[in-house]
C-alpha cells in the first residue's frame, strides 16, 4: 500500500509547490487531500486517516498548532496509527528559534529540495513496518507531536526558567482592582478566549498573559501542562480517571467539583508507577 499524506496550507501556490516538491522527493507518496484551513485539516485528517500530515502553522480558522492538538485527542488510535506530523512554516520568529536546526519534522518555506529529501528519508524510516511494537509506536508518535508542539508553541521544552514567578498579578472580575496571588495558592490555570483564568481553592482571577508566555515562568516540577488550555499544580492532583470513551480527566484537591480534561498528549504524565 502506498504511503498517504494530507497537506494543510492556506496559500494555494505554496500548497501546490509543496505537492510538486513532494512528487519529486517521494514519488510513491499519495496526497489524499489539500486543505486551506485548520478546521478542515482536522476533519479531513480524521476522515482520510493519512500516514503523514504536512501542516502550515499560520492558518485561518485555527492555526496548525491548535489543529494538531485537537487531532491528537480525537485520533482513533485503535483504528489507525497516529500519523507523522511535519510543520511547514515560513519564517516564523518563534518557530525558527525554537526548532533545533537539525529537527526533521519541520520544513521551512520556500521548500528546498535537499532539505525535503532528508525529511522524507526520516518519514520513510518511521513508516517502515516493524520498527516498533504497536503500543510503543503510539507513545513514540505522541512524544514526537509533543516535542514539535512545544517547540513551535514557543515554550522551551522542559528547561526551567531562571526566575520562576512568585506572585501572579491578576485583575478582579470588575477589572478595577489588581490582586496579588501567591503562586502557592494557585491550583490551576486555564486559557479562556482572551484571558487566562487563575484558580485558587476559593477564588478565580483573570490575567492577560497567554498560557504559552506564562508556562516558561512556572516551575516545571510544580506545574504541569495537561491540556492545550490547562496547566495544573501537580501536587494538587487528587486522581486521574479514564472514562468509557477513553478520555482522561483529573480532579484536584481543593476544587473537588471540577473535572479537568487531560489531553492524550500529556497522558504519559499520569502513568501508574
Amino acid at each position, binding site marked *: 500500500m502506498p504511503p498517504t499524506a494530507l497537506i494543510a496550507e492556506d496559500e494555494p*501556490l505554496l500548497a501546490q509547490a509543496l505537492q510538486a516538491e513532494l512528487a519529486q522527493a517521494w514519488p510513491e507518496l499519495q496526497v489524499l487531500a489539500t486543505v486551506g484551513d485548520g*478546521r478542515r485539516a482536522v476533519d479531513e485528517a480524521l476522515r482520510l486517516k493519512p500516514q503523514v500530515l504536512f501542516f502550515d502553522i499560520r492558518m485561518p480558522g485555527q492555526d496548525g498548532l491548535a489543529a494538531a492538538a485537537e487531532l491528537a485527542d480525537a485520533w482513533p488510535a485503535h483504528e489507525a496509527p497516529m500519523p507523522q506530523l511535519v510543520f511547514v512554516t515560513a519564517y516564523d520568529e518563534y518557530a525558527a528559534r525554537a526548532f533545533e536546526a537539525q529537527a526533521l519534522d519541520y520544513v521551512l518555506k520556500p521548500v528546498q529540495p535537499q532539505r525535503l529529501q532528508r525529511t522524507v528519508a526520516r518519514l520513510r524510516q518511521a513508516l517502515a513496518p516493524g520498527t516498533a511494537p504497536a503500543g510503543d509506536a503510539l507513545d513514540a508518535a505522541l512524544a514526537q507531536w509533543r516535542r514539535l508542539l512545544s517547540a513551535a508553541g514557543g515554550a522551551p521544552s522542559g528547561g526551567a526558567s531562571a526566575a520562576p514567578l512568585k506572585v501572579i498579578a491578576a485583575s478582579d472580575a470588575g477589572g478595577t482592582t489588581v490582586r496579588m496571588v501567591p503562586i502557592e495558592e494557585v491550583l490551576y490555570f486555564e486559557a479562556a478566549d482572551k484571558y487566562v483564568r487563575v484558580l485558587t481553592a476559593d477564588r478565580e482571577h483573570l490575567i*492577560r498573559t497567554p498560557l504559552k508566555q506564562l508556562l516558561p515562568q512556572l516551575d516545571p516540577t510544580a506545574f504541569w501542562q495537561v491540556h492545550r488550555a490547562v496547566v495544573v499544580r501537580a501536587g494538587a492532583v487528587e486522581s486521574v480517571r479514564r472514562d468509557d470513551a477513553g478520555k482522561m480527566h483529573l480532579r484536584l484537591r481543593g476544587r473537588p467539583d471540577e473535572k479537568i480534561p487531560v489531553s492524550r498528549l500529556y497522558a504519559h504524565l499520569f502513568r501508574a508507577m
Partner: protein
Amino acid sequence: MSSLPPSPVRRPPGAAALYTLRHYLYVVALCCVVAVFTTMMKPGRSYGSQLVYSLCIGTICWGVIEFGRYLVDPKHCHNSPDGGHGWPKGWRGLLLTAIGIVVAFYGGNWLAYTLVGSSTPLDPQDGARDSAMGLYVTIAAGAIGSFFFYTRGRAAAMAAKIAAAERDASEAQLKLLETQLEPHMLFNTLANLRALIAVDPPRAIAMLDRLNSYLRATLNGSRATQHPLAQEFDRLADYLELMQVRMGERLRYTLALPDELREVPVPPLLLQPLVENAIRHGLEPQVAGGEIRVSARRVPHAEGEQLMLEVADTGAGLPAGGLPERHDGPSGFGVQQVRERLHTLHGDRARLEMAGLPGGGTRATILFPL
C-alpha cells in the same frame, strides 16, 4: 515643547568635578577682569590686592550659587546637560543669585581684609564710598557671571534635547521599517514567488515588479515626508496585489480614488499599516477571507474641507471591548504610528478612528484638513 524626558547622559566618574572646575576657571577669569577694572577706577590701588578682593568675592559668590542650587528641589530646576541638577527656574534662580551676591560681598570683603588688609590703605576716609562702589561692582559681576552660566547651560540643555528628539525619531523610523518589512510577509512572498517561477513565469515577473516597487517605497518612505495620494494608492495596490497572489480568492479589494484628489499630499505609506491590519487581523483569521475597500473623499467641515481616507474590511472585526490593550504588537504599533504621524503634520485637526462594523469587519477612518 516636547514632553520627552531628557536622555540620561552617561559620563565617566569625575566628569562632574571636571565641569565644576571648568565653571570655577571661568569665574577666576572674570575676577581677573574685574580686578583690572577696579584698579583702574582709583589710582593708587595695587592690582595684587584688588585681585585678592575680587577672587575672594568671586569664589564665594560662585560657591554659593554653584552648590546652593543643589538645595533647590530638582523639579524646580532646568535639566542640566551634564545630567542632573541644572539652574533653578524663575524667581528661585534670581533669589539664589541675590543671596550669592550678598553673601559674597560681605564674606569676600572680610576674607580679603584678613588676608591682605584694607584695599585702600592710603585713603581710609573713602571707606564708605568704596564699600558702595564695591557692592555695585560685585552685583554687576555676579549678574554677568550668573547670566553667562544660565544662557550657556540653557543652550547645552537645548542641544541635548534636540539630539534626544532626533534619536527618538530615527528609532521610530527603524521600528516602522521593521513592521513594514515584516519577515513573515517577506519570506512568504518569496516562497510564493519561487513557486510561481515554475508554473507561471509571466505572473512571477509581474509579482517581482510589485515586490520591487513595494520594497522601494518602504525604504524611501521612511525618508520622504509627503507624496501625492495617487502614489499612496499605487503602493497599496502593490501590497494588496502581492497579498492576493498569496491569499488567492480569499482576498478581494477595491481602491477608490477620485481624480480630483490624486495630487493631495499625504505622508508616504500612511495607510499601509491600516491595510496590513485589515488583512492580518480581519481577513487572515477567516476561512472565507473577505473584502478590503480603501477610499478617499472630500467632506465638508466647520473649518473648511477635510480629506477623509477610509480602510474598511469585512473581516473578523474588533475584539469585544475595542482595540486590544497591548501596544507592543505590530498591530498596536501600526495604529499608534499612524496617529503620531498625523499629529505631527496636523496637530489636533487630524483624527484616526477605528470602529467595528455591524455584521463584522472593521473600519479605520482618517480625517485631516485639505
